[in-house]
C-alpha cells in the first residue's frame, strides 16, 4: 500500500541515461533510476557491474559522460561538496572515516554544510558562533544517540570496532540532514547480528523521512529491506522491481550463476550423479549404525 502512495509523489532522485566511460571501457551504460521519498531502493549486481561507479556519478565524484542526475527536480552540480549541500549524503564501500578525529568530531564535520560560521566568526567568537557550535554539538550527539555511539563520543574513530565504524559513517552522513542517503555496502564484513542491527538502523532512518539507496551483496539483507531492487549487470540495468520480481527473474539468476552452455552435463548425467551420491550416503549411514552396535 505504501508503495502505491509513494509512487505518486515526485521522486527525490532521478537519474536518466547515466553513462560513464573510462576511455574505451563503458562502466555504466544508460542507467535510469528513480528514488521516491520514503523509499528504500536496493542496487545489486555481480562484482564489477558498475554499482559504485554509478554511485560516484550520483554524488559528483565522477562527472557522467552522458546523462543527467537531478535531486528534487534540480540537476545536481558535478562537485561532491555541492551534491552534499543539495541533500544527497553517502557512505563509502571501504570505510573512509577521519581516523584521527574523535567520533563526535567526525559527526561535526558532517554538519559542515548545514552551518556557515567562517574564519572571522571563529576568531571573534561572538554569541552567534557559540550558539551555532552548541547547536551543532547537540545535533551530533542526537545522531550518535540514534546510532548507539553516544557513549563513545570522545573515542578516536580509528579505535572503534569495525561494525561501529560503519555506524559512525552513517551517522556522519546523516549529519548533513540529507533527503537521500546512499549506502555503499553497509554490511560488508559484518556478522549476522550486526547485519540485523544495520537493517533496523536503515528502517529507522526511513522513519525520519530520508530516502535510502543501498548497494549490497547480502541478498537476504536486500530483500528484507528494500521496497524496490534494481539489478545492474555489466553496466546496464537488467531489471527493476519488487523483491519477488527480481528474485524470480531468470536473467538475474543467469547473471549471478551463469547459464548452461552448449554440451553441458545433461539430465541423464545429473541423475546418475545424484543416484550415486544417494547410494554413498546410505552406505555410510548404515556403516555408522553398524559401528554403533
Amino acid at each position, binding site marked *: 500500500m505504501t508503495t502505491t502512495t509513494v509512487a505518486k509523489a515526485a521522486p527525490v532522485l532521478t537519474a536518466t541515461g547515466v553513462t560513464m566511460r573510462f576511455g574505451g571501457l563503458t562502466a555504466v551504460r544508460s542507467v535510469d533510476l528513480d528514488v521516491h521519498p520514503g523509499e528504500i531502493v536496493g542496487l545489486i549486481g555481480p562484482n564489477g557491474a558498475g554499482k559504485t561507479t554509478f554511485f560516484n556519478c550520483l554524488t559528483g565524484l565522477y562527472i557522467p559522460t552522458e546523462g543527467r542526475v537531478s535531486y528534487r527536480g534540480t540537476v545536481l552540480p558535478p562537485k561532491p561538496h555541492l551534491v552534499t549541500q543539495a541533500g544527497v549524503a553517502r557512505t563509502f564501500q571501504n570505510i*573512509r572515516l577521519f581516523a584521527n578525529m574523535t567520533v563526535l568530531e567526525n559527526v561535526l564535520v558532517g554538519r559542515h554544510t548545514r552551518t556557515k560560521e567562517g574564519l572571522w566568526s571563529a576568531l571573534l567568537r561572538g554569541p552567534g*558562533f557559540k550558539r551555532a557550535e552548541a547547536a551543532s554539538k547537540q545535533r551530533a550527539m542526537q545522531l550518535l544517540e540514534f546510532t548507539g555511539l553516544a557513549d563513545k563520543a570522545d573515542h578516536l574513530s580509528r579505535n572503534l570496532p569495525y561494525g561501529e565504524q560503519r555506524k559512525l559513517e552513517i551517522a556522519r552522513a546523516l549529519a548533513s540532514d540529507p533527503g537521500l542517503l546512499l549506502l555503499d555496502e553497509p554490511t560488508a564484513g559484518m556478522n549476522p547480528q550486526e547485519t540485523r542491527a544495520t537493517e533496523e538502523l536503515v528502517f529507522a532512518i526511513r522513519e525520519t523521512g530520508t530516502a535510502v539507496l543501498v548497494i549490497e551483496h547480502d541478498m537476504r539483507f536486500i530483500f528484507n529491506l528494500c521496497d524496490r531492487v534494481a539489478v545492474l549487470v555489466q553496466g546496464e540495468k537488467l531489471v527493476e522491481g519488487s523483491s519477488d520480481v527480481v528474485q524470480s527473474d531468470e536473467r538475474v539468476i543467469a547473471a549471478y550463476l551463469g547459464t548452461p552452455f552448449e554440451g553441458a552435463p545433461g539430465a541423464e548425467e545429473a541423475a546418475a550423479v545424484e543416484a550415486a551420491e544417494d547410494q554413498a550416503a546410505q552406505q555410510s549411514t548404515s556403516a555408522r549404525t553398524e559401528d554403533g552396535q
Partner: protein
Amino acid sequence: MTTDISKATGTATAPAPRTTLLRALTAAGGLAAMASTFLAWTWTSDFPGDLTVYGYPGGLQILTLALGLATLAFALAALNVRGLRWLTPTGSTKPLRLLALGTFATTWFTLIAIAVSQGGLVNLEPGGWVAAVATAVPVATTLLLPDDTRPLCRPVPLPSWADILIIAAVFTLGLYVVNYGIQTDEDNPEPFIGYLIALCFAATALLRAGLITRLSGLTSAYRSLTLVAALVTAIVFPFTQDKASYTELGVNIAIFATVALGLNIVVGLAGLLDLGYVAFLGVGAYTAALVSGSAASTIHVTFPFWAAMLTGALVSLIFGVVIGAPTLRLRGDYLAIVTLGFGEIFRIAVSNLDGTSGPSVTNGPNGVPNIPPLKIFGFSFDDDHSFAGLTLDSNSNYYLLMLLVTVIVVLIFSRAGNSRIGRAWVAIREDETAATAMGINGFRVKLIAFALGATLAGVAGTIWAHVQTTVVPEQYVFAGPVPPNSTFLLAAVILGGMGTIGGPLLGAALLFLIPEKLEFLQDYQLLAFGIALILLMRFRPEGIIPNRRQQLEYHETGQLDVPDQAALSGSTVGVTKAEA
C-alpha cells in the same frame, strides 16, 4: 608484565629490606653529589664558570647541585618520607634512575671536559674525584632497584590557593630554567651542553614520575590563570636579563616561534606541506622595508608602523592567494615540490628586481639597508625608556611588541583550530575525498589555511625587517646555516609537535638557541638538523609536545585505545533504543 605488577604491589605494601637499603644509598649518593659541588673540581679558572672555589658551587656545578637535590628528594619520596610522596605519582624507580643518570652524565661530562680542555686528569682537584664517585653510586643502586610503576591515581584535592601557588611556582621555576640556558656563556660550548644534558634527563624524569600529567591536569583546571601566568612570565623575561644580547635572543626566538606557529596552521592542521613558507616572511619584511622611509627604498613613502604592518599583512595575503590558487589543486608531494619552487622564485625574483635585470623595486642583491627604528605614536623603539624604575632598552621594546604579536597568533591558532573551519582542515588532512563528500569545499578551505598562514608570516616579517634593519634576498633561502629558512621553520614545527601551540614555540626556541650557543655546530648545522630529525622520527615521531591525536596515532597505548566492556554493552543498549 604481570610479574612487574605483582612486584610493584609487593613493594607498595612492604618494601623488601634490600630495596629500602638501595633507596637509602641513592639518597646518600644524591646528598654526596650535592656536597661535592661545594668543593673545588679544578684548580684552574680557565674552565668556563668558576669551579675552583671551596665553599659555594659555580658554573656547571650548579647543575649537579640541582640534579643531586632532585635525586635526594625523589629517593626520600621512594622511602615514603611524609610530605614528599606527591613527587612520584606513577612510581619512583624510573624517575630516580633517570635523575641518577642525569646527575652522572652532567657531572662526568664536566669532569671529562675539564680534563680534555685543560690537558689531562691532573687538572682535577680532589673535589672532582669526590663528585665522580658520588654521582656514580646512585646510578648503580637505582639500576638494581625493582620497577614500581603504578597507574596514576586521583590527585589529593588541595585548596585552590595552593593550586594557584603551585602554578606560580612552576612558571617561576620555568623562567629560571630558561634564563639559565639563555644566559650561558656564548664563547664556550661546555656550559650549554651540560645544560642540555641536565634538561633532557630532568624533563624525562618528571614525565616518567607522572608530574607532567599532574601539572597538565592542574593547568587545564585553571586555564585562564595559567594563560595569565604564562603571559606574565613572558613579559617579565626581558627584565631578568643582564645583557642586551640575551634579550635579543628572546626577540629572535619570539619572531621565529610566531612564524613557525603560522606554518603550523598550514602543515599541522590542514596537512599542506609547504616548503617555501619563508617567502611569505620575506614578502612581509620587504613590504615593511619599502614603506619604512629607508633611504635605499625605491618607494619614497613613510608609513606609520600600524599601516606598514597592515600593508605587509595584506601583501602577504595577496601573495598567499596568488600562489595558493594554482598550487592547492595539487596534493601531497606535488604540492611540496611546487611550494619549494615558489619559495625559490621569490628569492630569485627579488634579487633581480634591481633596475638592470628587471624593474627597479627591491634594490636587487643589496636589499634595503638602514631601515629606521620603529616608532609607534612617538614611542621610539631604539631608545631606552624608563617606567617606574624599570628600564626598557631597544631589545626589550621589540621583544614586548613581538610578544603581543605572538599572543595574537596563539589566539588565532587556537580559535581557528577549534571551530568549524579548523575541523574542516583536519578532515581534509585526514581524507580529502571523504571530506569533500561531507560537503567541504576542499579547495576553498585549503586556500583559507594557506592565506592565513601567509598573512601571519607577513605580520611577523614586518617586525623582523625593523629588528634586522636590513633585508636582503639571501635571508630567504630554502635551507641555510642561519634562520630563517624554510627548513628551519618546518623542522621547528616537526620537532616541537605538529598541530599544537606549544610545539612550534619550543621547537623554534631550541633550534634557534642550540646553534647560537654552540658555535662549533654552526658549520654542521644542516647535518645536525638531519641527524636530529632522523632520531626524532625513530624515537618520538609525534614531536616533543604531542598533539593528543598524534600521540594516539603513533603509540597504541592511549587510554582511549582500549574499548572497555562497559562502553561496549552500553552501545548495544543504544542500538536497541534506535530500533524501538
